[in-house]
């Protein structure tokens, strides 16, 4: 359907019109309009990835990822429904048991998109059995630390390192549940890769995998990003790690 000349094209999101520009995805247009669609692997500065499935919405009755689907005039999009939010909670519970998300000792707590999204979806407990993976920490880099047990495979670090830093320090390897984050160096250790603290990839991780050394717990409780307002009220775009 073509919009009348001069009038902006719109789709409806949970019953309210959202304007969009040609070529925009549903989540881009919604975010620009200050509307929240849950997401983990999408970041406004990067190409979509489509791995977390948190952004799944119903478009004219059919499920699709809001981060990969282009907006078109007249689409009826449902996002904030009991059914979709229940599915999102299940996806979050899967991500939580798949890793070791011991938030009480995680330096990212309060600034973590996974945690904030779980709060938003009312995830009280993990529901599934814990996997308790055992992936050793990589502390070989002088300024950065990697705790692979918290990785949600969003590939943001891969995209940032390749597309912004021009270094391709990170990659995703393996299959199935053994899929994991890799460091592209001969030894496989971050200390031997061409990585610097100022790289975009060093601050892009939405969870607590890529952490700066000697700077943990710097923000007082109460002032951390998601202490101040729930994630649904922070749709200006995803900031990098503080």
């Amino acid at each position: 359907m073509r919009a009348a000349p001069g009038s902006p094209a719109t789709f409806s999101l949970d019953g309210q019109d959202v304007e969009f520009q040609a070529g925009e995805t549903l989540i881009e247009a919604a975010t620009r309009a200050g509307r929240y669609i849950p997401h983990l692997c999408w970041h406004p500065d990067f190409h979509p990835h489509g791995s977390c499935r948190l952004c799944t919405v119903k478009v004219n009755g059919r499920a699709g990822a809001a981060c990969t689907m282009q907006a078109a005039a007249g689409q009826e999009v449902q996002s904030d429904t009991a059914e979709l939010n229940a599915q999102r909670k299940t996806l979050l519970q899967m991500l939580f048991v798949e890793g070791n998300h011991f938030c009480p000792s995680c330096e990212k707590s309060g600034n973590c998109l996974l945690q904030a999204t779980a709060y938003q979806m009312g995830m009280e407990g993990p529901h599934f059995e814990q996997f308790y993976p055992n992936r050793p920490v990589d502390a070989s880099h002088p300024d950065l630390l990697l705790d692979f047990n918290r990785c949600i495979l969003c590939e943001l670090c891969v995209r940032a390192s390749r597309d912004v830093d021009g270094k391709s320090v990170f990659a995703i390897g393996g299959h199935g549940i053994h899929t994991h984050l890799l460091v592209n160096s001969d030894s496989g250790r971050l200390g031997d890769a061409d990585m610097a603290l100022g790289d975009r990839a060093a601050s892009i991780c939405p969870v607590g995998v890529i952490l700066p050394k000697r700077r943990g717990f710097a923000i007082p409780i109460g002032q951390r990003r998601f202490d101040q307002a729930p994630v649904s009220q922070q749709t200006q775009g995803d900031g990098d790690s503080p």
Partner: protein
Amino acid sequence: MTTPAPLPPLQAPRKLKLATVSLAGCFGCHMSFLDIDERLFELIEHIEFDRSPLTDIKQVGVCDIGLIEGGLCNAENVLVLREFRAHCKTLVAVGACAITGGLPAQRNHMDIGAILTDVYCTRQGLSASCRIPDDPELPLPLNQVHPIHEVVHVDYFLPGCPPSANAFWTFLNDLMAGRTPHLGHGLMHYD
């Protein structure tokens, strides 16, 4: 027609029975519960404590609510948890440890035998005769720490490490009023 005044109840409503326990916990969830401060006096109008670290009752009786702090790290934890499940109508996993295993589950990628040897035998400052305690009186540790929902059915989860006093208060009031507990922004946290 005039509506007759409602009859006064013959007796006050029965107080709810509440049992609490700490398994592989740090007692921090109990301390946070006590942080409701003087609201405890209000609470005690509606509930009666059964077995709890705060009472002297040794065996858990039939209860309306059981609050479980801590995960499962040894055989005795599992027995006590099963007793609580058998006696409590509503069982609540309280705090990160009961819900996910918590920070104690960070031992899960280590061998339990090696940990015990490190702590009881080879650590510096131990006398030469030190060995791993082996009296049958002592409960054997489990190979790994587990959250309680992996062993018994859990009705509700009250997250936090520990949950704040306000989270306890909101949660218990919802439960006592027969509502599904709901923690909003600020009360819902995992850390």
